[in-house]
């Protein structure tokens, strides 16, 4: 229940950030970090990952992060390059 209130609070914080008119890059980074926090809360408490064997976490999470990182390696540098090429 406490976790759930925390999740709603983070959602509220994200909506509040939408009012702040941040630059898209800053906004995207902040939102991704907050979402990863929320995903961690959901997985560890709602999905009981915290109460399973730790070995399972060691199997699942690094493999997933590795695969996502492989996708990012292809796209990320190019998107940064495009950002610098963009007319200011």
């Amino acid at each position, binding site marked *: *229940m406490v976790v*759930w209130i925390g*999740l*709603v609070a983070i*959602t509220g914080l*994200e*909506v509040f*950030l*939408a*009012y702040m*008119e941040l630059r*898209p*890059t800053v*906004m*995207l980074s902040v*939102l*991704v970090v*907050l*979402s990863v926090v*929320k*995903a961690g809360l*959901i*997985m560890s408490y*709602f*999905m*009981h990952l915290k109460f*399973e*064997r730790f*070995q*399972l976490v060691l*199997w*699942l999470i690094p*493999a*997933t992060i590795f*695969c*996502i990182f492989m*996708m*990012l390696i292809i*796209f990320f540098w*190019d*998107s940064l390059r*495009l*950002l610098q090429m*963009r*007319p200011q």
Partner: protein
Amino acid sequence: MHDTKTDAALSSPWSGGTAPFAMGSKKLGMWLFIVSDTLTFSALLITYSYSRLANPDWPRPFPINPAIIFSTTMTVVLLASSLTMVMAVMAAQRGDRKRTVLWMVATMAGGLIFTGLHLREWLNLITKEGFTPWSSPEGSPLFGATFFGITGLHMTHVMIGVFYLGIVATGFGRGKFSAEDVEVNGLYWHFVDLVWMFVFPMIYLMSVKY
């Protein structure tokens, strides 16, 4: 037949009878599905973020009032349905069949409300604002492609989840399914919620109209 070699093979972890990570095979299977589905969604979201950052003329069709308030309501509905699912799993582990089915029906209602609100928003975007999956009234047409693609795939997951909940709730009510089946169903539902926790900020809050 029962020489020492076969005995050794049968006593190995690969011969069956042992549970990896001390969990049932259904639960492990659901975790593996969740990992693969995570990669599907992250591929879509990375594509989206890339186009979002690379296009200065990205459309911003979501004013704070009503669109952001509307989609925040959707988020809270989905989060609430996650909470009722936690309740269902707890009731199932206590062996309380009636409560479990009630909480699961509440979860299904949450999923249905979410889908209904979402479809209303889609209709509004298509008929009133003129967005389609391949074009947009102003700015990059990639908005429609990524928006309808990602939220559509997520909505498909929600609807499949509603059917899945219905089947497991009926079966559990009749005593055909165990508490573990309810828990595995919960894993799926929480995952759908988790995906929305990425979709909502990255798609809606990145396209607020000022």
